[in-house]
């Protein structure tokens, strides 16, 4: 009789994430979702002010070819105190450039727990789930969760005319406030 070889445990799948900070709060985003990381200063030259009624978290837009990237203040999106933001994450497959305070670390997560169902408001759109890194629970953001289709429609309607889009804002910086 042949004894079956013990099954090898499947290697844990892991996902590379960037842990970042906004107003002292930690969040994580999949590294694969971040197309580029720029300093907010380097973004300011190409930004144009935009004013969409009821959407305070977006104050600037950047044109890239025929695409518009809306700069979302992470602080205002999450209801935190306004923060200038030092870095911009350009999120892949979205029209969002997320303004954050800084990167905490890059690491890997092996387990992502679905957001408990007790959380039943906007946070369900904000977060893919929760993960524990070094015994600390960190929410993992949903790249598509920063701007809803309704938000994008509002922003498209509020886009300044093309001839005015080349101008830089007076202060020359991207500001979240």
């Amino acid at each position: 009789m042949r004894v079956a070889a013990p099954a090898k445990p499947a290697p844990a799948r892991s996902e590379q994430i960037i842990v970042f900070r906004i107003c002292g709060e930690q969040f994580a985003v999949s590294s694969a979702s971040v197309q580029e990381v720029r300093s907010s200063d380097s973004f300011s030259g190409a930004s144009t002010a935009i004013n969409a009624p009821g959407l305070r978290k977006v104050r600037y837009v950047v044109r890239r070819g025929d695409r518009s990237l809306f700069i979302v203040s992470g602080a205002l999106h999450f209801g935190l105190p306004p923060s200038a933001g030092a870095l911009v994450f350009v999120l892949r497959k979205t029209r969002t450039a997320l303004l954050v305070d800084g990167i905490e670390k890059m690491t890997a997560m092996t387990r992502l727990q679905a957001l408990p169902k007790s959380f039943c408001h906007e946070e369900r759109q904000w977060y893919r789930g929760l993960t524990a890194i070094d015994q600390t629970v960190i929410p993992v953001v949903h790249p598509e969760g920063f701007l809803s289709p309704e938000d994008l429609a509002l922003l498209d309607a509020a886009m300044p005319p093309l001839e005015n889009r080349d101008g830089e804002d007076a202060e020359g910086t991207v500001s979240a406030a």
Partner: protein
Amino acid sequence: MTVSAELELQSFVLLRLGERRFAVPANQIAELVAPSRVFKFPHHTTQIEGVILRRGRIVPVCDVAEMLIGKKIMSRRLYLLAVRHYGAQTEWVALPVTGECELINSEMTPAAESDAPHVAGWLSHAGDVIEILNVDAITPGPSEIGAEHEVPDVLEARP
């Protein structure tokens, strides 16, 4: 006591919030745990104050004191991990309590129509009439979740 009377007894966990005691059916309690670090992050569900890590699970902490006794509790001694139902699915929710908990056997008087939604029934113990809590009614979340919205508790990380 007759056999039929014994069969009607149910187990309940008595918990204390401030000066008041409440009961939860014991079969809806997963565990009683010591206070641990509450992790907070931005969200808009006001009844949830954060989450705790327990045996690798992330459990939301729901402070029910304000709803039940009209004020938040400042001192807490334990978390009662209760089973919350969402349709056919269940999840743990941590309820902060201020005193020792007690396991008792008692008969349950079903709630009347005039009782508040959070009252599942009543029991009598040591001269007190005590509310039996409906955990689903005192904690936030959808009451029913369709199959199309079901998500596994643990999502696989992407390689």
